[in-house]
């Protein structure tokens, strides 16, 4: 009986999400390796080593690059919980960046306060851009995917226009934004040759807060209920419209913080700062957030790890260029991992079926035991004839 706690853990939902993520990563790396074998067979093993292990030698930058995608991942994941697909994290991210830049250049505030104000402004910008898809969805029943894609474009062009039009922010000779004042930059952690800063801790703290909101509060209860079953939440009298708008607001705020964290990060070169180049490209970090959220199973805690992992292999991936690989190879590997993270659910179900079959042929007693435990089986037949009907199709 002393093994019950192990059983409890292995049977829990988060454990199965974790194992399926691991499986996805494993398969993704294998296929990624095969791709690299085709590209440069003699260097593929070395490249795989770089991808897997380089990040450990550059932890500061792993955390630095993990921060923005952790935020956009949380943004996408949080909306997912409500059943909303916020594909507009990029736009919200860009707006957050603009607002943070604006606060950085415009206000003259003391050290220790300025950057906080900038971060809050970034949050505000993302929130603003998140509200619109929420309002459209709630009150006009326009699919949030379409609205938020459009708002990615509107946001990107708008920001670039505003940045280029501002003499304070934009330096035409470098075609980038000017250096932010030191007071606006996030406090660095002091790791050599890296821009690692306090934002990683803020992001992790936010993830934990989101976890608590989702699992301990009535708002989280409503939100997850709506995500699981819209009709039941309506039946229970939950205010779906209000919740959609609030969720998109929070989701946007999170992505906006991602943009703020990215642009406000301290530079490794003294007297400079991060800069933004307005060249009408939609921020990739927004889309990476979708990948992070998927791999993290939309769970805030899962997203902490998935964002750090993706940042880790991305750092390693950039190093493969030394071996003559195109840096895009790592994007391919990441894409394959994401693909398998969706696919692994299918693999897991097939595995479950196989195990049940094996158990059955072993002996009926064990099956009875399995039955009495009533484990979660998504396609268990018999409790409703409709279930069987669906499978016939």
């Amino acid at each position, binding site marked *: 009986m002393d093994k019950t706690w192990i059983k409890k853990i292995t049977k829990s939902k988060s454990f199965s999400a974790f194992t399926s993520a691991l499986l996805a990563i494993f398969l993704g790396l294998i296929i990624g390796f095969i791709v690299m074998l085709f590209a440069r067979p003699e260097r593929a093993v070395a490249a795989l080593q770089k991808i897997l292990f380089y990040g450990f030698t550059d932890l500061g930058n792993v955390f630095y690059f993990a921060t923005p995608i952790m935020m956009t991942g949380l943004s996408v994941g949080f909306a997912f919980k409500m059943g909303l697909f916020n594909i507009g994290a990029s736009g919200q991210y860009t707006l957050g960046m603009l607002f943070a830049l604006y606060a950085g250049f415009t206000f003259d505030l003391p050290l220790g306060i300025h950057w906080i104000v900038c971060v809050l402004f970034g949050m505000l910008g993302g929130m603003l851009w998140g509200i619109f898809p929420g309002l459209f969805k709630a009150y006009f029943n326009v699919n949030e995917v379409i609205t938020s894609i459009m708002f990615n474009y509107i946001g990107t062009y708008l920001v670039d226009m505003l940045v280029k039009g501002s003499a304070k922010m934009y330096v035409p000779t470098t075609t980038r934004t000017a250096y932010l004042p030191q007071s606006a930059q996030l406090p660095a952690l002091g790791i050599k040759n890296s821009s690692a800063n306090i934002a990683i801790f803020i992001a992790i703290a936010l993830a934990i807060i989101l976890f608590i909101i989702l699992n301990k509060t009535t708002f989280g209860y409503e939100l997850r209920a709506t995500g*699981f079953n819209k009709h039941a939440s309506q*039946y229970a009298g939950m205010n779906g419209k209000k919740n959609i708008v609030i969720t998109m607001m929070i989701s946007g705020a999170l992505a906006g913080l991602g943009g703020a964290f990215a642009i406000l990060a301290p530079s490794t070169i003294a007297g400079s700062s991060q800069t933004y180049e307005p060249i009408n490209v939609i921020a990739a970090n927004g889309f990476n957030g979708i990948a992070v959220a998927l791999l993290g199973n939309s769970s805030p805690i899962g997203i902490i790890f998935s964002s750090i992992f993706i940042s880790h292999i991305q750092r390693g991936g950039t190093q493969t260029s030394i071996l003559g690989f195109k840096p895009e190879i790592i994007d391919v590997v990441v894409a394959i991992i994401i693909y398998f993270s969706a696919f692994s659910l299918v693999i897991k179900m097939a595995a479950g079926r196989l195990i049940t079959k094996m158990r059955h042929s072993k002996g009926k007693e064990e099956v009875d035991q399995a039955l009495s*435990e009533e484990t979660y089986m998504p396609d268990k037949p*018999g409790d409703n*004839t*409709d279930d069987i*009907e669906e499978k016939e199709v």
Partner: protein
Amino acid sequence: MDNYIIEMLNITKVFPGIVANDNITLKLRKGEIHALLGENGAGKSTLMSVLFGLYQAEEGEIHKNGKKVEINNPNDANDLGIGMVHQHFKLVDVFTVLENIILGVEPNKMGFIQKKEARKKIMDLSEQYGLKVNPDALIENISVGMQQRVEILKMLYRENEILIFDEPTAVLTPQEIDELIEIMRGFAAEGKSILFITHKLNEIMAVADRCTVLRKGKYVGTVDIKDTTKEELSRMMVGREVNFKVDKSEAKIKEKVLSVKNLSVASEHHKNLAVNNISFDVNAGEIVCIAGIDGNGQTELVSALTGLSKMESGQIILCDTDITKANIRKRSKAGISHVPEDRHKHGLVLDYSLEDNMVLQRYWEPKFQKKGFIKKREVRKYANQLIEKYDVRSGQGPTTIARSMSGGNQQKAILGREIDKEHKLLVAVQPTRGLDVGAIEYIHSQLVASRDSGKAVLLVSLELDEVMNVSDRILVIYEGEIVGELDPKKIDVQELGLYMSGAKRDKSKGE
């Protein structure tokens, strides 16, 4: 005598986590009507799906006329002369009757369909078996009974000799059921063999020659109908004695609780009103039943009552308060409890635990939350109370995921939740749909108990037995109008059927 056309020998079919069929043997004689009886989840549908080639059994053999056959898909089954009428019809709504019948076996010359040939064959069959259909009508425009005839004609057109009927009477009126029984007898006389899945004992007694009973995936036995009784069959099916009569005393009618005035609701499916100018009252201490054939406006009526959808016009008054414009939460607070028609769609969040589902209507109450934080301990305590009180059985108690529970226990959980909530009116829509006899018995007794504690109960039901046994007053709904107000003690099922099919209506009601 042992002239078996189909033998299913020692069939075992396993799904993840459950053995749906465990070593089941079923032997079908030529020219007999063989009923397959069992509660929901007993494995009837699975067994028939194995025979029809939708599932492959892990163990066991199927023999036809003594020879072993392999059935890997419905086409194989069709080649062996096995046809099936599914519970939910497999018809193309926007095709005509004729097009649906020939679908998949279209007679053609160089790819051009020969409709003339098909039409002649269909009309011949239609005449021979008394299955009147209009071959040019679109499926979406004909009645459910008519659609079933199309399904039957599909089997005949394919010259099937083994006919499987999966709960064929669930959607029919009493008159249509009688006709179907006649048709089935005709087939048997012609030498066709019929497998008839059901959990309605009356129909088995009326039409079947033999009956095989399954329970929890296991074979219980095969009996000759002429040597058995309804009670015997139900004991085999449930495994214990069952009380068919609902025990209840005279209704003690008290004050008016619900008053619906001139209610009209638009339809989502067609241009006409789904509910057309309906008025009725429900009083405390009585069970009023809305009876009718599926799709006559019951769903829309309940949606408008509970606030799930908007009404076109009319007024709803609950205990002297006008709730016409109130939202769902307000109506719930005002005293409406609602056991919804579709427990998976509305009644439960299937991926939530049982305890989270138990507070679905009440999580916001100060009892269960403080400053927006859910009091987990209170929720757990309350869930345990309900589980105890309403005998909800599940694998891991309050932490069981609702999806993994059986239909009967899911329904008990919903019913418990809704009855336990402070309420004046209980709206229960098909509360026993798809449940086994034991659960039905329990739910009926709870409805009566709720009535006796002074609540008003509005029951919406398609099951005639339920309508007759449980209700104190019957309102018959037909095409969105109430066509009769009946006393269950004074009428019989046949007359009720006439009202339900629109053949009869009270002059005082409607137009």
